[in-house]
């Protein structure tokens, strides 16, 4: 009895380490969006950041993303100010997050080079509102390191982000979001 208890005790921490090693992460994920409206003018409503964090769990196929909204860089400084102050209210809601599950994660071989198309099902939180999100993307493994990439669309009205009618033709309600992350194995 004692031996079994001892074995369990020995195995439990080991299981913890094994699980920890099966995770991949980055702190330099790239997220960009294009909210260019119907009106074609010189002011591009685009922004990008390379400070997104992401952790993906190979064993469960779960992944999580977080991006600081103040990290988004715009070509126009005033547009960036308005984005933070009037649209996403980044003082109140500093981060956008995504928590999801790779539907077909058994097909993804995280340590074998190749490109694996995936569908990720999850919930995105932005501007204090959480909505379901399904995004198609790829897991590309190169020299044993996985990279995630996806393009998807979200509606600003779903997240209670109001666009004043004055700029209604400049800013699209449905915006395209692109994410890219080169992941590293997580070591404790």
């Amino acid at each position, binding site marked *: 009895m*004692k031996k079994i*208890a*001892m074995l369990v*005790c*020995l195995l*439990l*921490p080991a*299981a*913890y380490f094994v*699980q*920890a090693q099966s*995770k991949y*992460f980055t*702190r330099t994920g790239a997220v*960009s969006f294009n909210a260019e409206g119907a009106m074609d003018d010189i002011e591009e409503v*685009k*922004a*990008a950041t*390379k*400070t997104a*964090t992401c*952790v*993906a*769990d190979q064993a469960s196929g*779960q*992944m*999580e993303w*977080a991006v*600081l909204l*103040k990290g988004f*860089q*715009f*070509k*126009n*400084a*005033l547009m*960036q*100010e*308005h984005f*933070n*102050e*009037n649209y996403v*209210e980044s*003082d*109140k809601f*500093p981060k956008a997050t995504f*928590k999801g599950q790779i539907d077909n994660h058994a097909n993804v071989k995280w340590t074998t080079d190749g490109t694996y198309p995936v569908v990720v099902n999850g919930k995105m939180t932005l501007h204090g509102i959480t909505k379901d999100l399904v995004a198609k993307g790829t897991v590309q493994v190169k020299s044993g390191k996985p990279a995630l990439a996806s393009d998807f669309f979200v509606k600003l009205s779903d997240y209670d982000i109001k666009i*004043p009618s*004055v*700029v209604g033709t400049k800013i699209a309600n449905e915006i395209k979001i692109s994410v890219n992350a080169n992941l590293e194995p*997580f070591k404790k």
Partner: protein
Amino acid sequence: MKRLIFLITSALTLFFLPLKGSAQEGSLLDILGKDEVTDYTTNAFKSSRVINGHSMEMISEGTLDFRILHRFGRISDGFYEMFGLDRASMRIGFDYGISPNLMVGFGRSTAKKEMDAFVKYRILWQSKGSKNNPVSLVWVSGITMNGLKDPIGNPEVPVTLSRRLGYYHELIIGRKITDRLTLQLSPTWVHRNIVDNQLIPNELFAVGFGGRVKFTQRLAFVWDYGYVINRFPGNLLANPLSIGLDIETGGHVFQLHFSNAVGMNERAYLSDTNGDWLKGDIQFGFNLSRIFQVKKRPIE
């Protein structure tokens, strides 16, 4: 010995178990630890000015702020002057953001045909996160030049360039206390190379009290009071007090306000004769600010 190993492994297990639990129940991102980001406070004020005085805000790097300031005549002038609307005094100016913490600007006022120029530097930027600064500290130094043909009005005193000049220096200590409330204090020193008579000091010391209460994303109430410590003759009511509304409409910031000061630079509004609020010697005015992106910013 066996017992010892058992104890150690049990202890280890107990030590790791909660970690394992939290990793599963909480967020996957928790394993990355806390973010090492500094969150700098932005939008303490809509504009780089409270109303007349400088605010703790800077304009962004590479942007040009075209500012048109307008002051009508005194409301106490009555109906004949359409409560001041028949008269106007203005200042046109340009500010430029050299870096996130450094900006310069110049302008010209119709009153005294005065030119002014300033340098504004943010010494400390209010922030939280990995760097925690409770306040912003901003330094402003400026110079003014009276452009009148006869700035002194005394034939015994020859007009020289130096006699046209005045200087001001101020330190702004400001804090965006909540999203709605911002307060700032600004000790100011104004030096005038020449004054009207011996009773008037060349050096003026003042403390500015400015603030903002934000109602909505695009509308805020602002006020700006300058307590001049050694003005002659001393009159509390003649100290510049301005109250107004900040209205933001996309690329423009409008400031609509009432003030007893006509001057639109630090020397002018602190040292020139201002009206008495209680006698209705106040004027309606507006500041219009339009920001242009001059320097290209790559977004990759």
